């Protein structure tokens, strides 16, 4: 670790801290229907949307209707995305003729399983990419299918978080807001304006934005190079702001056209945390006690700091095996040292470790470096961040309601220890809340472990339909513990709706597309629906007045409790798996052990 590297992380965090309050206050105004400075511009548009869609702006919904709207909308999303993907050959904005016979050599076909996987991936805000963007999808698909989901899946997640906040804020109420209104307002007042500004900044620094066909050039040494084009900057902005993470290109935010300079990189990581951090303040504002929001913020900060510095430390320390071969492992001022495999020169170690931590703290999944090539412990950080349900600031909305679910579990156990039925923000936590919080945590843990377990051993015939390479482990790019980490990472990323990968694993086969797609859907809705049930349940409850007998939920003790709950639940659930992946690999790497790809014996 270098002073300047630490400085980058510290300055980053100070900026996040500084924008939390204004952002949070603004969002509170938006979701409480108050007037904002954007009203002159957006209000007529908002009214128009309600008129076109037949939504009654003043009609609030109970949790059941809210959830029904969410599911109906997700269904519509799925069908739209799937149809556009499959029909891209006859749709406009397709200069490279993807999906037609005129597609360039090397273009990948959009099979039904890939289309399903991608639709599930984008509607769930996962943005897992089983495809390589530059050789698969037309600009129309990127804009009108994928980028649209970047907006609305983010808005839906934020809407659910806001509904849950209303559950805490309201007193003996049945309604928790209107999904359509929350979705529309979030898109119009928050996502679109910020994306627009960010897109212009990205473009000014070098991110591309056009509808041209790819450019053929003759390089200086005389070979040909095909330089891809497309409307990248506009998509890049929402990809980060909405913690979606689906890159225009395969290399995602490591691609120079997506993320051209260290400055754009810095803005990208800020965009990821912008809304999640702001939501903590929105929460405090809406429940009438901003200290409550700051307490959550503090817990997230501790977990973030722990993750980023562990990751940075191990990445900066580098790979001892390479050091032995004569590669410089220390920072020297004119070269970065450390583990540069899978990292970009312009970002170096600190910005890469920061990005990796932030993108998995949040459910973003954009990457500016290849996590697969991280050192074992450096890679364990993103893995663990995801497995604890991405609650460290977290995905837009999802991170926040995820953290509240952890708070419910933590407060329930600890609350008993003060001798009262546990209360959080004046709401008694009883059977239903505990059941739903456990259900959410359980569902994702189950999906991760069970799918990873099956995939570790499932046999398939070579060149069969389900997995042409053979057994599921034949798709790995590494063997030994690291190969296992690739599986574990994939099945952690999908249900947690992250979308980043230990990308060595080849996942565009029916087995992986279907199981990962399923994992994404379960992970999204098995978390959202319980959150909405809790919202409805809490809204109906009375608010118990705060007294000195109430467990305080705005002090250091609570922060510690919340941090402890997240770590303990995560560690206890995944310790065995992590021990067989990154942990053992760490010990083995220091012992200099290497793994060659084994051809697995056919299952008998």
């Amino acid at each position: 670790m270098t002073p300047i590297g630490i400085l980058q992380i510290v300055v980053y965090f100070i900026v996040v801290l500084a924008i939390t309050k204004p952002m949070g206050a603004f969002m509170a105004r938006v979701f409480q229907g108050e007037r904002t400075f954007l009203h002159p511009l957006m209000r007529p548009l908002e009214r128009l949307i309600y008129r076109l869609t037949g939504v009654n702006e003043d009609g609030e919904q109970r949790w059941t209707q809210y959830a029904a709207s969410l599911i109906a909308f997700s269904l519509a999303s799925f069908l739209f995305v799937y149809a556009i993907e499959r029909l891209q050959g006859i749709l406009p904005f397709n200069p490279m003729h993807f999906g037609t016979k005129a597609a360039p050599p090397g273009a990948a076909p959009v099979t039904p399983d890939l289309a399903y996987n991608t639709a599930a991936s984008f509607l769930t805000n996962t943005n897992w990419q089983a495809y390589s963007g530059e050789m698969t999808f037309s600009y129309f698909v990127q804009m009108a299918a994928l980028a649209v989901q970047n907006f609305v899946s983010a808005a839906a997640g934020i809407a659910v978080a806001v509904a849950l906040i209303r559950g805490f804020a309201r007193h003996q109420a049945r309604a928790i807001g209107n999904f359509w209104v929350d979705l529309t307002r979030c898109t119009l007042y928050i996502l679109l304006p910020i994306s627009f500004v960010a897109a212009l900044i990205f473009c000014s620094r070098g991110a591309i934005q056009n509808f041209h066909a790819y450019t053929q050039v003759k390089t200086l040494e005389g070979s040909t190079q095909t330089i891809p084009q497309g409307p990248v900057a506009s998509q890049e902005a929402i990809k980060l702001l909405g913690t979606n993470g689906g890159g225009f290109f395969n290399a995602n935010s490591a691609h120079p056209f997506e993320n051209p300079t260290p400055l754009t990189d810095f803005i990208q990581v800020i965009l990821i945390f912008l809304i999640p951090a702001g939501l903590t303040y929105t929460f405090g504002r809406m429940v009438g006690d901003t200290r409550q929001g700051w307490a959550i913020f503090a817990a997230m900060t501790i977990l973030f700091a722990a993750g980023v510095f562990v990751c940075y430390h191990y990445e900066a320390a580098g790979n001892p095996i390479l050091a032995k071969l004569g590669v410089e492992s220390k920072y020297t001022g004119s070269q970065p040292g450390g583990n540069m495999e899978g990292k970009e020169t312009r970002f170096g170690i600190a910005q890469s470790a920061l990005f990796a931590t932030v993108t998995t703290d949040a459910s973003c999944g954009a990457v500016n470096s290849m996590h697969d090539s991280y050192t074992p412990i450096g890679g364990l950080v993103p893995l663990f961040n995801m497995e604890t349900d991405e609650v460290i600031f977290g995905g837009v909305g999802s991170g926040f309601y995820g953290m509240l679910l952890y708070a419910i579990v933590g407060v329930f156990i600890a609350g008993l220890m003060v001798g009262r039925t546990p209360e959080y923000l004046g709401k008694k936590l009883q059977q239903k809340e505990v059941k739903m919080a456990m259900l959410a945590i359980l569902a994702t843990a189950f999906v991760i472990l069970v799918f990873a377990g099956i995939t570790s051993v499932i046999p398939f015939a070579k060149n069969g339909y389900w997995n042409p390479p053979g057994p599921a482990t034949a798709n790995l790019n590494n063997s030994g513990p690291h190969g296992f980490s690739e599986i574990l990472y994939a099945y952690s990323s999908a249900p947690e709706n992250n979308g980043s990968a230990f990308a060595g694993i080849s996942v565009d086969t029916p087995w992986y597309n279907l199981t990962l797609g399923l994992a994404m859907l379960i992970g999204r809705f098995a978390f959202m629906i319980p959150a909405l049930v809790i919202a409805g349940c809490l809204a109906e409850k009375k608010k118990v007045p705060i007294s000195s007998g109430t467990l305080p939920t705005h002090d250091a003790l609570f922060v510690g409790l919340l941090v402890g709950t997240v770590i303990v639940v995560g560690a206890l659930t995944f310790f065995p798996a992590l021990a067989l992946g990154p942990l053992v690999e760490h010990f083995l790497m220091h012992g200099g052990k290497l793994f060659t790809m084994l051809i697995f014996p056919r299952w008998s």
Partner: protein
Amino acid sequence: MRRQLAPAFRMMLVMTILTGLIYPGIVTAVCQIFFPRQANGSLVRADGRIVGSALIGQNFTKPEYFHPRPSAAGTDGYNPTASGGANYGPTSSRLIERVRADIAKFREQNPQFQGPIPADIVTASASGLDPDISPAAAYAQAPRVAKARGVPLARVRQLIEQYTEPRPLDFLGEPRVNVLKLNLALDGDNR
């Protein structure tokens, strides 16, 4: 649930038009007006023809050019339609074999260079299109380039210094040297 379907599809359609067509359309228009060079790929011209993009790395193998980092994009590297990293884990024997081979090649091509190899020059980048190398990796190649071109080493080192981009705002990222720009500058010198 069924009552929610109609507004769901209407909302989806409205959002598709708004965020999927109008938004990128306006962004494109504004960018094409204000940042046409960047918006179209920061293309670099030499001798009146496009030789690449300043942001996209390309392969250099000749001794008179500075060489970029190893690339895993496409079979031969630096294929922008196949961006991505090598994705080898730290205990992968294939990683170690590749690095060992690249070290040997680097040492062979740059016999004057002693000491530990700069970390970036034998490791594959994340995008496979990294346009930059670290200043150390450039200085390590300077004697070879100077010799192949028959220009004084001092001039080459001067160019490296000139083309070393500092950290934006003095603290972000790492200092770096754009390989294509540096090589173009060398060519310009020789003309």
